[in-house]
């Protein structure tokens, strides 16, 4: 039947460039999603410069810096993993993805530690100490929890994406020829990294 031959052609159709273009468009939407929060941050920082200074000085710079190092290094390991798969070494590619995941988990542990200390001080929306914050500082911490929280969700999603790709590499369906799926997961992971590169100075460094 003619329709069957067309259908085989259709499923055989594989457009790596198109798949990557789709990923880039998706990354645009992610940037704009965070963009809305950055606008709110800019507005409230402009309105309450002193309160933001006060809020910023209460954050733990060391924890933030360690997490920055973790994420930057994990971006490197993802890039290395792509190079490994380009050269056809799928075992090394999987190992490097696993190292990336370890960094992601370490990042989340650090975040957990950081937030737990905040909770112990009653510093979470709805808790006692939080309600007594002066208005501008409350906005700082609102944005701190929202933006780093949303970022943490992206870390988790990115790690899951990488795990899935690692599984497909193991099964062989993502390989040297169909590397675009690993590249896309890598792009997403770099986005997570880039957003943190902006969040870290905005909350921890600029005082």
């Amino acid at each position, binding site marked *: 039947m*003619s*329709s069957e031959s*067309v*259908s085989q052609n*259709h499923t055989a*159709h594989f*457009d790596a*460039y*198109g798949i990557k*273009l*789709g990923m880039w*468009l*998706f990354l*645009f*939407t*992610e940037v*704009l*999603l*965070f*963009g*809305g*929060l950055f*606008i*709110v941050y800019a*507005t*409230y920082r402009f*309105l*309450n410069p002193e*309160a933001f200074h006060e809020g910023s000085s209460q954050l733990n710079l060391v924890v933030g810096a360690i997490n920055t190092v973790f994420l930057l290094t994990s971006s490197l390991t993802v890039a290395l993993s792509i190079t490994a798969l380009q050269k056809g070494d799928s075992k090394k590619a999987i190992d490097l993805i696993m190292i990336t995941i370890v960094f992601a988990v370490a990042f989340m542990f650090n975040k957990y530690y950081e937030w737990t200390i905040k909770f112990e001080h009653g510093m979470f*929306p*709805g808790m006692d100490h939080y309600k007594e914050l002066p*208005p*501008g500082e*409350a*906005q700082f911490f*609102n*944005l701190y*929890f*929202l933006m780093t929280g949303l970022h943490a969700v992206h870390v988790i999603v990115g790690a899951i994406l990488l795990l899935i790709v690692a599984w497909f590499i193991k099964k062989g369906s993502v390989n040297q020829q169909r590397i675009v799926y690993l590249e896309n997961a890598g792009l997403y992971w770099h986005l997570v990294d880039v957003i943190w590169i902006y969040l870290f100075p905005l909350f921890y460094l600029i005082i």
Partner: protein
Amino acid sequence: MTAIPHQKLYVDFFHEKRGLASWLVTHDHKRIALLYFYAISGFFVVAFCLGLLMRLELIAPGETIMSAQVYNEVFTLHGVIMIFLFIIPAVPAIFGNFVLPMLIGAPDVAFPRLNLVSWYLYVIGGLLALSTLLYGDRPADTGWTFYAPYSVKTGTNVTVAVLAAFILGFSSILTGLNFIVTIHQMRAPGMTWMKMPLFPWALYATSWIQVLATPVVGITLLMIVAERTLGIGLFDPSIGGDPVLYQHLFWIYSHPAVYIMALPAMGIVSETIPVFVKKSIFGYKVIVYSSLAIAFIGYFVWGHHMYTSGMSGPARIIFSILTFLVAIPSAIKVFNWISTLYKGSIDIKPPLLYALAFIFLFTIGGLTGLVVGALATDIHVHDTYFVVGHFHYVMFGGTGFAFIGAIHFWYPKIWGRMYNLKWANIGFTVLFIGFNLVYFPMLVLGMMGMPRRYYDYLPEFTIPNLVSTVGSWVMAIGLIIVIVNLINGRKGPKASTNPWKSVTLDWTHTQSPPSLYNFEETPVVTRGPYDYRDYEEYIKNES
């Protein structure tokens, strides 16, 4: 019309596989388009009925059929369904999905599975929005704009309604993303950018708006959810929040969203007119560039929704100037369509009637848009019925009519049958008269000073309101005639593959209804999309 010569040699997409399950897991862009069609039409009918109820309440001053609170809930649900569930997805998700691949000579969209995911997100979002009726204290009563701080304070089901809008936004983003990649990567050999038909061009511009604007409202709505669930006060002035900031963020998306609604409808008009005048469209390239210009300038005009919100004077003046600018490309399109009609051999069939109605009604909507876009006059008519009249002329008179026109245009392509042309004309006429009866008095009422969003009004506004309510019944009758005629058309006479004698690929190179992958072999494009020189011969040779 003669019978299709190759009738038995192909299997159309309806019969490729059978059963409900095969529809629910389909990757075929045509089936997904029809899934959208049924879901969107269902929501449209619901919201249309809510609109009728609102008009009934306003038939006379005082409480007639519902209390103020119920009226607030009804107009909120009417707005949310009409905007997020009908008019944003209607043209791209139904006709974009159905004909875009065929117009550019592709077997499907770039990401067929993602396309199905978009539909499921749409359905989940829609059901969530409707579910707010069923539990909690009351359905949302904020209006479709969810303005803070009221949306943060009200005890009604705002959180779920907002989440529904967020999910629907996601669906819209994925559709836009899919179309951009499809248009970039899957055009048939020979179809250069400037040989692409104008409906795909309109969808291309629309898709960029969907991708670049929707995430902003997504995060804004999430902030409303965070504010309601965590009790933080991002937009609450009592703890240093800024409610006007919410309005900015909301309109940064929601004004470009107006062009998500209007641009594809303009694409349909550009697609329809040449077919029924048998003449190349006037100023093809200018129409292309004006679509892109609308998409681009449309990002920078959101402030004209906020002239009375307390923005600075210079900001208001700049937004007003930019608003005038965005009117120019729309006007250019109108001139191009009219010039296309000039010296054409005009064949008035239902799809052309709807396209002409679009030009007429959209022009009224556009010109009244300048009245509200101009700073000085807007202060006078802000938040009056003039605004309600204006946007219904643009949205219903424009996009709504183009949408119904598109159904009439591609009906024989989708179902391979022809509806009754005479009843289609009658339905159109009643709908058109009813439409103007409903919305023209609103423009007058606005000028007289009647504020919008109240269930009650002063006695001097009675007569125009009565006319408008009676008009809503005429419009309902018109719509019923149209719908019944279209449903009956399913049992109508078989249509030939190309009943309108169009020269675009969807009509010349596919069957009606099309087969699973549309084209028996990939078409090679050598002519421009609206080249009607010797078209009879061309159509005969190609089919």
